Each structure stands twice: as C-alpha cells, then as structure tokens.
C-alpha cells in the first residue's frame, strides 16, 4: 500500500508538471490557433539557460530568474513575432509544421552549443523524505506537487479573478467581439505567449532535477502535454490541468502495475478511448461545425 501512495504522489507530481505545460499549450491554441509541436523543447531549453547562467557564476535563484526572463524574451516574444505572426493567417497546418522544424532546431542548437550528454540540475526542493500518515513520501515529489499546484492556482486566479484574465478569456472565446467591446486583442495574445513562456520555464525548473537536462528530453514531455491537453479537453484550461494530472498518475501506475515495456501505450489507449467516447475531452466543450 505504501507503494501505491508513493506512486500516486510521484504521479501527481509529474502530472502537475505536465499540467503546467499542457495549460500553456491550450492557451496558445485558444488565443491564436497555434499548435506548438516545440512545446516540449520549450520546457527543455530554459533549464539550459539556467545552467549557462550558473556556469557564468550566478547563484541558483538568480539563474532561475534569468532563465525565466530569457524564456519570456525568446520563447514568448521572439516566438510570437518571428514565427507565429507571419504565419498565422495562412492557417493552422503550416504553422504547426514550422514549430516541428523549430523543435529540431532547438534540439540541435542545444546539442551543438551546450552538450549532447545529460547534465545534472539542482533541485529547488531539498531531497529527503517526509512522513504522511506514518508513511515515508519523497519530499521532492511533494515539493514539486506543491509548487506546481501553486503555479496552477496563480494562473487560474489570474484568468478568472482579474480584469486582465477575463479580457484574455474573451479573446480566446471570440476575438472579433472582444475587439468590438474594446479589448486590445493583440496585446492579450502577446500576453498569453508570455504566460506560456513563464509556465514552460517553471515546468523546466521543476522537472529537470528529476529527468536531468538533456537536449532530447523535450520529446517525451511535449507528447505527454499534448495528450494531456487532448484528454482534458483541448479548449479548456481546467481540462488541461485535469488531463495533466490524470496522465501523470496513469503513466506512473501503469509502469508499476501493467508493464514497463508498454507503459507509454497506456496513455495512448486512454487517448483513443477518450476520442471514441467523449471526443470533446473530459472537461472540454464541444466545438461547433461551420459550413
């Protein structure tokens, strides 16, 4: 039983990180129809910014701030201005393909300029174990879970409680009407890109100590976030959160109880089942067809 508890906590911890990445993914989709196939690489890259800052002598906390800042400039602003803006009016697919090429470019750049080997990364949460209900649970999992939940609560508060967040939601629901009632649509879209950049940087800080910093680690992450977003409902932030947590737990439990060889298959089967029986996702709303 203590195994199960441990697995659940670890699963929720990775799931919460998936949720952060998946939320960024759905935000971009909602406000600007961008399917970002480089989202996993976006999580991989800030860790290297931080490592580079630390190599230059910055303390860990400063390196994290530098990493988040660089991520906002390059993966938020730069990504929007240089790639999304020129391509958006040409439809979803060419842009999606361009992000695939971007993913290759980021991976190769990290391999070439940094290292092809995995680098260790300091953890923001101290190692060790805490005792819950008389059982030992990894402190790192708990810390990651707490931080990720904090980030998610902060984001939902921003989206639902502030005027800014409501303006962003309005843009996501109907940009034309939003423009008519005086919402600065362009600025709101830029804001979602910046939020996505912060989310991936936070996810990077949380997940890299677990999986190490490696140029190829974005592939698995990006795919997990993608599936989490679909399972939860492609068009809902809370759906992406639920999807992320679910995928994290399912992934961990299936590795322990079903088969390590087919662990990656279980989320996929879940995905197909969701599409068959509940195509709008667990918490999503159905999209309407247009002629």
């Amino acid at each position, binding site marked *: 039983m203590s195994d199960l508890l441990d697995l659940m906590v670890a699963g929720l911890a990775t799931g919460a990180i998936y949720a952060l990445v998946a939320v960024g993914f759905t935000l971009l989709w909602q406000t600007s129809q961008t399917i970002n196939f480089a989202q996993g690489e976006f999580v991989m890259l800030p860790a290297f910014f931080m490592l580079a800052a630390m190599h230059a002598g910055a303390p860990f906390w400063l390196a994290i701030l530098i990493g988040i800042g660089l991520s906002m400039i390059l993966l938020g602003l730069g990504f929007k201005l240089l790639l999304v803006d020129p391509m958006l009016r040409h439809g979803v697919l060419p842009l999606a393909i361009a992000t695939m090429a971007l993913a290759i470019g980021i991976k*190769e750049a990290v391999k*070439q300029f940094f290292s092809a080997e995995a680098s260790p990364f300091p953890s923001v949460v101290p190692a060790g174990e805490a005792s819950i209900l008389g059982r030992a649970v990894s402190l790192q999992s708990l810390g990651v879970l707490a931080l990720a939940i904090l980030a998610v609560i902060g984001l939902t508060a921003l989206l639902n409680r502030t005027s800014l967040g409501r303006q962003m939601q309005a843009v996501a629901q109907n940009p034309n009407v939003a423009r008519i009632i005086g919402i600065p649509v362009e600025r709101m879209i830029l804001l979602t890109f910046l939020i996505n950049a912060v989310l991936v940087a936070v996810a990077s800080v949380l997940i890299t100590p677990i999986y190490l910093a490696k140029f190829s680690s974005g592939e698995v992450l990006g795919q997990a976030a993608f599936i989490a977003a679909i399972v939860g409902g492609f068009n809902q932030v809370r759906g992406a959160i639920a999807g992320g947590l679910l995928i994290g737990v399912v992934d961990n439990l299936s590795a322990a109880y079903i088969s390590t060889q087919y662990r990656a298959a279980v989320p996929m089967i879940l995905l197909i089942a969701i599409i068959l029986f509940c195509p709008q996702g667990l918490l999503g709303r159905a999209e309407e067809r247009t002629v």
Partner: protein
Amino acid sequence: MRELRKYLPFALSAAVVAALIVVPMNFNRYGLFILSQWATMTIAAMGLNLTLGYAGQVSLAQGAFVGIGAYTAALMTTHGLPLAGALALAILLCFAIGWLLGYPALRVQHHYLAFVTLAFSTLAFLVFRNESWLTGGTYGISNIPRPAIFGFATNRPLPFYYVCLGMLGIVTLCMWWLIRSPWGRAFMALRENPIRAQSLGVDTRRYTLMAFAIGSALGGVAGVIYAPLTQYIDPVPFNLSLSLDLLMMVIVGGSGFFFGPFLGAMIAVLLPEWLRVTEGYYLMLYAAAVILLLIWSPTGILGILDRFLAERRTRAASAKRAGTKSQWETVA
C-alpha cells in the same frame, strides 16, 4: 508556340526521368543509397499527400505504416518468401489498418484523426520494439535479401536504385490516374468543403476512410522497398519523428500539388546531406531553412511557382483585355 507549350510538360518529365536513369550511373554507393532513399520517401510522402493534400485529413502515422511495410518485407523475405508477396500483403495490411483507424476519427471532427494517428504511431513503435519474438526487438532484423527481378539480381546499389525508381514510377502513374478519376475529384471535394460535398451526394464517410487507407497503403509500399534498401531494420527509424518528417515533406513541397512530395522529399533527404559539410550545424541550418521557406511561402515550394504562374496568367489576361478594349474604341 501553343504546340510547344502543350508538349513542354511531357518533354520536361521525359528529361527528368532520363536524368534520373542516366546521371546516377557513376555515383558511388553512398550517393545511390541517398537517391534510393529519396525515391522511397517520395512514395510514402505521395501517400500522405493523397490523405492530406487532396482529401484534407491530417495523419501522423505515415511513418508507422512505412514501419509495418518494412517489417512485413523483412519477415517474409528473410524466411525465403518473394518480395512481391510481401508487397501485396503490406498493401492489404496497411489498407485494412488505415481503414479501421479512420473509424474512431470519423465520429468527431477531422482534426481528431491527427490525434488518433499520433497515438497509433506510438503504439506501433512499442509493438516493433517489445514483441521481440516477431520483430527482433531492439536488435532488429538483419541480412534482409534484395530481390531478383525477372532473374536479375539487384544486390548491387545501382540495380537496386533502379528497383526503387521503377517502383516510384509505377506509384506515380497510379496516382496520376487516381487523382484524375472520379475518386480523386471526390477526395478534393472532401478537402474543400466536406459538408457541401455531403449535400451533393458524396459519401464523405467512405471517401475519408478510402483516402486515408490508400495513403496508408502507399506508406506500406515505401516500407517494403525500405527494408531491402537498408538490409537491416530496427524500430528506431519508424518512431513518431518519421511521421512528422513525412508531414513536413508534404507541406514543404506543397501539399495538394502532384509533384509536391518529390520536392519535399528532396529537401528532407538531400538538403541535410548537402549541408553535412557544416558538420554539427547541418540539422540546425535545415530547420532554419524549413522555417524560412514556410514563412515565405506557407503553401510550400510549389506554392511559390503556382503564385508566379497565376500572376503571369492574370497579367497576360489583363493585357489581352486591354488590347480588345482599344480595338473596340477604334471601331467605335
């Protein structure tokens, strides 16, 4: 002049075919391998172009179908069965799997096909890797024999290149016929406006499945010649990134253009080879080239040509109109 224009495309294609046959004759082993790979990937990309470019369905599993074809060929030929039999079986298998895979996607909107195929692609990879009693697992299958065509052994690189090229030629002719058939028109109606197509009596369900299944079968064909080309297969080349690469080839070449996959596969297979002189930077440059191309022309390389031709045609037409108008004026 008009006669010339009519025969120009035929002359041009004849020249290209002749060049593809004659020029590689003194290529080395590696050059021939790359060219054969180009022919193979073009076949797979043509299948995806039918699914995506003509019928408008996004598939992220074309790489998995190439894998199924390759494993079918590898398993059958290493057990002494002929490659032609493997080809027939692979086509049947990929067609059937594609057909079945399309069903869940049809229940909902079309971009869900992309998600289902993404999941299938990963599942197929896991089966290739884990079912080692059949596929050899991570060790793969080695010593895949090359076929003898009408008694000619094709073990050397040049004859096998001609096998790949011949297969590409056959697939091209079949596709040319298919696109011009009523089926091809139905596929395009599906892409342009599925609901209108349905209201005009096109059985959209059946044609969506059909386009996807035929496209998948061509992925299988590509796999069947991929296996004897490399003579060794393992699961790694058939993971999701092959599907994404093939999708990139179709979009970069120009999705929905008949010759788009030829150019797209050329960019994806040959450009990295040409850039190899830059060593560690070659894939970075390749990615940058793809991004810049798509920013410049989201409809791909043939999109540029198409725009250029359309502009010239409009200019010619308006010049003609201006000419007739001035004639009128002089008469009046």
